[in-house]
Structures are given as C-alpha cells and as structure tokens.
C-alpha cells in the first residue's frame, strides 16, 4: 500500500505545476498568494482550537473519556466498532475544531499509525462538519424547513463511520 500512496502527493503536485506552466500562470507569485490564504485561515482557527483542545484534554485528564469508552465498549465491541473513536463520531458532525481536538487526543493516546489512529483518521477525512454546512447553506437563503436533509446527511455520516472501520481492515490487515 505504501508504495502507491507515497506517489499520490508528489504526482498531484507535479500535475498542478505542469498544468500551471502550460497555462502560463505566474507560478511562484500565485503560490505565495495561496499560501497567504492558508496562513490566514490556519491562524484564524487558533482561538477555537485553544478552547476545544483545552476542554478535550481536561476530559481526558479527568478520566471522563476513559469512563465513557469503558461504558460504551460492550455495545461498540458487539458492533465491531472501536469504542475509543466514538467521541470523535459524536463531535464530528457538530464541530470541526472540536473533532480536531478529539482526533489529536486519539493520536496522543493510541498513535497515528495504530488501528484506532487510522480508523479515526479515515473518519475525519471522509466526513464533513454536517450541521455547519446545513446551517450555512439553508441559512443563506432563509430556508426554515430543511425536510429530509438532516436524516439523509446523518445516514451518510453513519455510513462513513462504518466504512472507516471496514476500509482500514481492508487496506491494512
């Protein structure tokens, strides 16, 4: 798997560069302009990350996360789902910074390359902040009745979580 995956990023970057060359884009200037945007949006999430990482670190230090994991473990095990990633599944649709905070806690406790770390990574990468998207898009045009949007979106999220476990098992065992 590694041999294929290590090619993805360099190949994508080269395609972008060649594409830019052909289209005569001022490459470095454009890169700088984009990097500036990335810098600003990274820095702008800092305050919410401080608040949420602090709260999740507190939950973990107090033993509350362990307690929760132990409580749901029997049900999660029965479903073949690692209990340690459940806090991530709960927070993921609600808050981007909150789920980032939980993900870093998972990486710290179980490593990024372990089974749990990988499942958490795939969950994070294959889903979005569902309620944020719903609020922004429907709110922007004053829609009050969202009809079946929330059930359909949450079904998709749940599928993403189940598929994360299956896909990690498929590609890494």
């Amino acid at each position, binding site marked *: *798997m590694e041999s294929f*995956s*290590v090619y*993805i*990023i360099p190949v*994508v*970057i080269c395609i*972008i*560069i060649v*594409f830019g060359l052909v*289209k005569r884009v001022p490459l470095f200037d*454009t890169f700088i*302009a*984009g*990097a500036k945007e*990335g*810098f600003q*949006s*990274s820095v702008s999430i*800092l305050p919410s990350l401080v608040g949420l*990482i*602090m*709260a999740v670190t*507190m*939950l*973990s*230090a*107090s*033993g*509350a996360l362990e*307690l929760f994991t132990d409580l749901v473990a029997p049900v999660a095990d029965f479903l073949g789902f690692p209990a340690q990633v459940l806090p991530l599944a709960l*927070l993921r649709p*609600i808050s981007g910074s909150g789920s980032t*905070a939980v*993900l*870093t806690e998972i*990486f710290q406790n179980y490593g*990024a390359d372990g089974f749990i770390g990988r499942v958490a*990574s*795939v969950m994070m*990468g*294959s*889903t*979005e902040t*569902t*309620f944020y*998207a*719903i609020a*922004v*898009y*429907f709110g922007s*045009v004053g*829609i009050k009745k969202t*009809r*079946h949007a929330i059930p359909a*979106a949450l079904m998709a999220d749940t599928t*993403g979580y189940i598929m*994360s476990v*299956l*896909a990690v098992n498929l590609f890494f065992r």
Partner: protein
Amino acid sequence: MLNVIWAVMILISFVCAVFTGRMPQLSEAVMTGAGNAVELVIGTLGMMCAWTGFMKIADAGGLTAVLCKVFHPLLKHLFPDYQAGSSALKAISMNMAANFLGLGNAATPLGIAAMKEMQKENPHPSVANNSMVMFVVINTASIQLIPTFMGALRAQYGAQFPFDILPAVWLASIVSLIVGIIVAKLLQGRKKEHRLR
C-alpha cells in the same frame, strides 16, 4: 449548540476528577491543552500554506473550470430540475469542483451562490425543495481528493506515511456519498410542490 457542549465538557471533567482523584492532572491539563493547540497550529501551518499555495496555482490554471466541465454532465442527473448549462447547475458544478480540490474558502461562497440560484425558482421560499436538499446533503459528505489538514495532523503526530490512508478515505467517502444521495432520493417523496419540473 457548541456553547453548551463546551461548558458540559469542562464541568464533567471537574466532577469526574473529584471522584477519580485526578485533580492535579486536570489542573495541569488546562495549561498543556491550551499550549497544545498553539503547537498544533504551528506544526501544521507549513503544510497548510504549501497546499493552499499549490491549489491556488491549480485554480489559476483553470483546473477548477476543467473539473466543473467533468462534473456538469454527472450533476444533471442528480438535479433534474435544472437543464445543462443553466446558471444554477453551473454554480453547483463550481462548488463541487472547489470542494473536490479542497478549496474551502472558495467552495462556501460558490455554494451560497448555488443556493441563491435555486431559491429564485423555489415555489415555497421557506421550504427546501428536492434540489436544495440534494445539494446540501452532497456538501455534508466529504468529496475532497486530498484531506490536507488531516494529513498534516497525522504528520505532526508521527505517522510514518501520513497519506497512506488515502485509499481508505476515498473508499469511505464514496460509499457514504452514494448512501447520502440514495437516502435523499428515497426520502424526497413524490409531492409535486417540491420539484420544478
């Protein structure tokens, strides 16, 4: 909602620490947690800048426009209310292309533009029509080709090959997207008032 969740997390921590006797650790966590957030942003900053830089080149070179053309015929089937080439379908395609490349800053304004286009012909302005629901459901699923931030986080926490999980991410994304689309189609019902034609 986050206001309540955040407060509850902190209060639960305190109550839990009283019972487990981990008050010293909790006290320490307040400081390390806040510091960790700064370390995290600094640690991932380089990667985030580099990636948004490359994506800006892709966008300026017209890659978004190319993707838009690729997506357009596919989207026609998901949004039967709009004909190929209509301004609503164009806005939808642009939003999907930006999402695919991970241009979050561009995707949201394009998505709002798409919603405004769809709202123009909406018979009940406060009720979502089928196309709007489909559009939002697709936007709540991740269709990002390379989830950069997640990769940067994995690198920060010592993953040997931070992007080795990409095939697994793609598989999980595509299956959840398909399920979202199918469920949205199944739940939309047959009422005529929610569609345009």
